[in-house]
């Protein structure tokens, strides 16, 4: 059954009648990134107004693959349970050459994690759940649909926005403007910021089909299947994913010189799908023809304007690094912006969002550009090497690992960056990494490490290590006792992942920022101060 695109209600904003008090944050764009940004800020106690030119969720499935780290972040935002309930859980990717399977990879080969490697869930469901969740903060999140931002000015200590509504224009002011307005960001365009990078000439067709029988055939387990040169689409590549509601994502490489408009018609698409599914009945739910681009902004922070998600960086989709990268952006920015607005950190802390996430997006672009290069050889010699890698892959393990149909999104490590304190001894969990999950047992029964970390900074102790008490800093113990909340580690997963006798300072976004063998109050306070940006050079803007 097709998704019911119910419009969100429009209400006339107060700014039409009288000037509004300055907002702490204006978020442009109510896609998954803008909505998640608003919820994260609300959970830190920061109010925002979210402005979107539209009044429905994403049309078409668009982003469908949500990675483990993203699910952990969505859990903190309060939507992961619904996503897990609806989504299709998977972790196996299979790669085929012609008819033969040549290599399968397991994206989460170890036990002891609350969330799976991936779920597939259409973007429209994610947006629906995020809108529902945002409405749980009526005093902190002001959702304004059919509010199109048409102009903005940076006034050094605030931004001023002009907004068009069905009832006419109005203006509003905000301490910070967060541009979550997507790959074609009008905010970025208005500022004339350079957004050029690598554009790939090949065109790809995305088609979502609904069918009762699975195109995966006998395999009951949902997986990611990728073909090089499949019998049903000779000489090109193809990708198959399962989504909820019996919807399947088919992604087909087209000719370089294909007519994109003609390709996105039922006349052209239906025979291509029949070549895959045979005579099984199906319904075409959505289709789109696109080219890949790999581009990022030089700077994500421009005075009072901050770029987040696709407005800051776009990648080719093989690797699920677009939506997942954007969610890591909001996770990184939320606590920093809140700390600055609440006077707990210098404005320079916002610059560290650029340092950390620009690095993360460069990593995503590198991986997705390489996958795209492998999929679409540009010269005869590239095609020759690709063909021989595929042949060798049938027999040789090393060649299987050279096959690149997308290296799937992994949490970005922020090791070595300014906010992290390098440990004196090499720590099992290097500062900069996102926390590793582990099954725990507590006073209320079985739980997970990612679920017991309270909001804000946390000092985590694993095994034989004493945690100093510091005002305003939560402590959590695993496999130890103390006057702070403590959990058992029945399977030994936490001790294996964090080491027995180590303490870690964990940021509000779940990244480790310091590791200690024997933490003193002074050492923890120094690390905390560093992570709050107090050692950073003064912001110049």
């Amino acid at each position, binding site marked *: 059954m097709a998704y019911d695109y119910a419009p969100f209600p429009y209400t006339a904003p107060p700014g039409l009648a009288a000037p509004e008090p300055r907002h702490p944050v204006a978020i442009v764009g109510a896609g998954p990134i803008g909505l998640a940004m608003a919820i994260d800020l609300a959970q830190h106690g920061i109010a925002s107004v979210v402005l979107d030119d539209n009044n429905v969720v994403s049309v078409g499935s668009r982003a469908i693959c949500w990675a483990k780290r993203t699910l952990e972040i969505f859990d903190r935002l309060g939507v992961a349970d619904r996503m897990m309930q609806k989504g299709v859980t998977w972790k196996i990717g299979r790669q085929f050459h012609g008819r033969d399977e040549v290599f399968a990879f397991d994206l989460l080969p170890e036990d002891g994690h609350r969330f799976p490697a991936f779920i597939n869930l259409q973007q429209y469901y994610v947006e629906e759940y995020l809108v529902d969740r945002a409405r749980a903060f009526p005093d902190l999140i002001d959702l304004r649909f059919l509010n199109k931002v048409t102009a903005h000015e940076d006034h050094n200590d605030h931004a001023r926005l002009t907004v068009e509504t069905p009832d006419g224009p109005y203006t509003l002011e905000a301490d910070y403007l967060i541009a979550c307005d997507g790959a074609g960001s009008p905010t970025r365009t208005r500022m004339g910021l350079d957004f050029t990078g690598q554009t790939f000439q090949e065109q790809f067709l995305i088609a979502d089909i609904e069918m009762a029988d699975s195109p995966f055939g006998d395999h009951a387990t949902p997986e990611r299947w990728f073909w090089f040169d499949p019998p049903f689409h000779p000489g090109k590549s193809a990708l198959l994913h399962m989504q909820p509601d019996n919807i399947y994502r088919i992604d087909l490489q087209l000719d370089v010189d294909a007519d994109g408009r003609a390709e996105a018609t039922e006349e052209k698409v239906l025979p291509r799908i029949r070549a895959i599914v045979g005579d099984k009945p199906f319904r075409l739910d959505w289709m789109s023809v696109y080219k890949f681009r790999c581009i990022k902004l030089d700077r994500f922070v421009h005075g009072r304007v901050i770029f987040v998600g696709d407005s800051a960086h776009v990648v080719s989709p093989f690797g699920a690094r677009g939506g997942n990268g954007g969610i890591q952006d909001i996770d990184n920015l939320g606590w920093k912006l809140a700390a600055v607005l609440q006077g707990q950190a210098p404005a320079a802390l916002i610059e560290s969002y650029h340092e950390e996430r620009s690095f993360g997006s460069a990593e995503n672009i590198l991986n997705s550009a*390489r996958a795209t290069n*492998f999929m679409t050889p540009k*010269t005869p*010699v590239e095609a020759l*090497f690709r063909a021989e890698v595929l042949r060798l892959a049938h027999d*040789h393990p*090393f060649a299987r*690992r*050279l096959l690149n149909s997308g290296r799937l999104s992994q949490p970005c490590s922020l090791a070595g960056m300014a906010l992290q304190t390098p440990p004196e001894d090499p720590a099992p969990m290097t500062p900069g990494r996102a926390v590793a999950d582990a099954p725990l047992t507590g006073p209320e029964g079985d739980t997970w490490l990612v679920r017991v970390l309270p909001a804000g900074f946390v000092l985590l102790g694993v095994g034989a290590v004493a945690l100093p008490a510091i005002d305003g800093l939560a402590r959590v113990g695993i496999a130890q006792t103390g006057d702070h909340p403590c959990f058992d580690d029945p399977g030994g997963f936490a001790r294996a992942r964090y080491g027995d006798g180590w303490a870690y300072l964990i940021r509000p976004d779940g990244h480790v920022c310091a590791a200690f063998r024997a933490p003193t109050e002074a050492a923890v306070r120094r690390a905390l101060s560093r992570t709050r940006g107090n050692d950073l050079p003064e912001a110049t803007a």
Partner: protein
Amino acid sequence: MTTASHDNLSPHQDDFYDALMAAHTGLSETQSHALNARLVLLMANEIGDLAKLTALMRMARDYDDV
């Protein structure tokens, strides 16, 4: 079919492949073939062991070329 038992490229296989493609960037097909020949000779010298090298040649030859 003999199998190359070790995967010595992982986890840096993508860096290697990217560097190999970059080495060919801008070359004509003839120049690329010459580059490949030089590379094979240089790599053979690195491996050194004649038994290994002949085994590798057989392994590569063991595919039907159309």
